[in-house]
């Protein structure tokens, strides 16, 4: 039994002019515990929508989503929310640290929704997690005093502090320079493999995607498995953008864009 299993999942939204926009179409994918999966695709192809569905932040329009064999559609809102807090850790592109709170308080924040030992030991657990991501000396620092890489480390510590089964990383290196992005991904990979958590990374950076054991491409709402050879100039039948420096982000061509952000979130 897979940890996450989507079968023929669709997601549609009704636009102001009453047309239906199909963001995801027939998505079928399974992710096992401890596995690292990357989903690539240009902006607006539905990557974040897929991630939101995986992370129980959004619900499919049709299809089935099984979490450890349990159909998510049968869970109440409260149960979904509690499972989200317990089983998923989110890493966002823009870090999304809580302003006005120290690094320690940010990492403590998810533990406020935990129960038992995790709740009562939240400060210690948060400090340990910060230590683990190399920020043991910055626990009392405000986010605006941290560098981008440090902020993302805090965000990773926060995502991992409850010991999630799945880490969902939405463009985790999108706001970082290449070197820092590499370090952050090293950290994510390392901690995910140490904790046995599945890591689902959404990115349009092929260097980031290539770290995963399996890669998928999302184009026009359709998810297809790809074999990503970093030395190749092609992703399946689509050519990569010209820059092939090993430390330079390689972008997918515009041909893969189905809808833009403004349409998605109208």
């Amino acid at each position: 039994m897979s940890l996450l299993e989507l079968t023929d999942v669709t997601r549609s939204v009704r636009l102001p002019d009453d047309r239906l926009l199909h963001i995801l179409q027939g998505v079928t994918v399974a992710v096992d515990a401890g596995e690292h999966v990357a989903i690539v695709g240009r902006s607006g192809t539905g990557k974040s929508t897929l991630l939101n569905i995986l992370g129980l932040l959004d619900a499919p329009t049709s299809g089935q989503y099984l979490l450890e064999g349990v159909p998510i559609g049968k869970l109440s809102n409260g149960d979904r929310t509690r499972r989200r807090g317990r089983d998923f850790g989110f890493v966002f592109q823009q870090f999304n640290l809580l302003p006005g709170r120290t690094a320690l308080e940010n990492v403590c924040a998810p533990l406020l929704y935990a129960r038992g030992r995790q709740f009562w030991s939240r400060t210690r657990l948060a400090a340990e997690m910060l230590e683990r991501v190399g920020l043991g000396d910055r626990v009392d620092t405000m986010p605006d005093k941290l560098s981008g890489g440090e902020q993302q480390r805090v965000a990773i510590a926060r995502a991992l502090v409850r010991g999630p089964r799945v880490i969902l990383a939405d463009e985790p290196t999108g706001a970082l320079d290449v070197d820092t992005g590499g370090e952050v991904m090293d950290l994510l990979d390392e901690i995910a493999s140490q904790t046995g958590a599945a890591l689902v990374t959404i990115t349009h950076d092929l260097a980031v995607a290539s770290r995963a054991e399996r890669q998928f491409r999302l184009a026009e709402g359709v998810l297809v498995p790809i074999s990503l050879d970093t030395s190749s100039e092609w992703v399946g039948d689509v050519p990569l953008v010209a820059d092939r420096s090993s430390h330079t982000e390689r972008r997918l061509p515009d041909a893969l864009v189905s809808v833009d952000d403004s349409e998605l979130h109208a």
Partner: protein
Amino acid sequence: MTGVVGAIVEAWGELRIHKLRVLLALIGVACAVTAITGVTALVSMLNQAFTEQTERQSGRSVTLNVNAWPRDAGAAAPAGWDEAFERTLERYDITYASRNEWTQALVRFPDGTRATQVQAVDADLGTINRIVPEQGRWFTDADESALAPTLVVNEAFLHAYGLTDLSSRPIVALGDRSPVTASVIGVLHDDWPGAEPSAYVLYEQFHRWIGPDGSGAQSGGSGPTTADPMMPVQVPTMFLWVPADRSAAIGESIARDLQADAPGWQVEVMDNAFDDGGLDKATTWVGIGVGGFALLLGGLGLVNIALVTVRYRIREIGIRRSFGATSGRVFFGVLLESVVATVVAGLVGVVLAVAIIKNIPVERVFGGGIQDMPPFPFSAALVGMAAAVAVGALAGLIPATFAVRVKVIDAIRY
């Protein structure tokens, strides 16, 4: 358990982060609670001052006033009136009682002997009428067995001796035929400017040392007196402090008993029960009105700032939802922020009210001062706190509803 503690911790964290806006919003609430609590306390002090003022005139509530007078001019004085007084106290278990006899005594002032108004009373009158001497002290039971009479005089009496205080332990001579010396042990304020000298003396001492005609004839014993043979015979009035709930029944019984002891006399028992409910209610409503209006203003400010803050915090709410915060928890959290804030403001308000009330110059504000200072009205503090919590809950309701309606994905991307 962890949910509630977590929500409180979260709410406190929010307040800590947004200190300034919380402070601004809560000043109004704190002032309102101060107003409600303080005004209620002031009202209670005002009522007490009014009650004490009234009781200085007519005795504590309820004091029965027992008067007797002859039905015809030739009626003989009732025998054993003083014994009847003692029997009444014993039968009805009355702790505080006093006889009161308005009479005159001849006092040898430096400028000559003058007939001076004297009230012969029992020591309990000090308690019943809340008598607090300006200088010295009021009578005690021990004074009754003293070997010389003691006096509590008014300022005019003292001034007539050229004195302003009791430091010289003044002794005055009473009577002309057989004068006795009396110690002045206390001085009372004059009832009005230009008051004539007057004095209180203990009833038993008066009859033992001074005599019914105030001459100092040492008549010995007590009983019905007459200072002037031409005046009709009279008996002292009795003041009996009885429980309010039984005053009417006791009054009727006493009237019946004493009537039997005084054939040919008319005995009447009146009480001094008064209803100050009107003042109480009016002042209470003024307090509630002032406090309520202040709370309304404070609450509106709080709603306004809370709404602005929630809009500002949409992304944060979305992020918390991604941590597993249920909509109920988000609602409760935002609501609790408001409630925790107003509870803090309420506490500040109550402390402020206590500080103000404890530092009020009572003598200046309430004239004669307050003998039995009413305790700080904790009920008012509780009402103030409850009002603060209610305002906090109401003020938090709108932003909390708004926060719950925020879509998680939109909020994260906000």
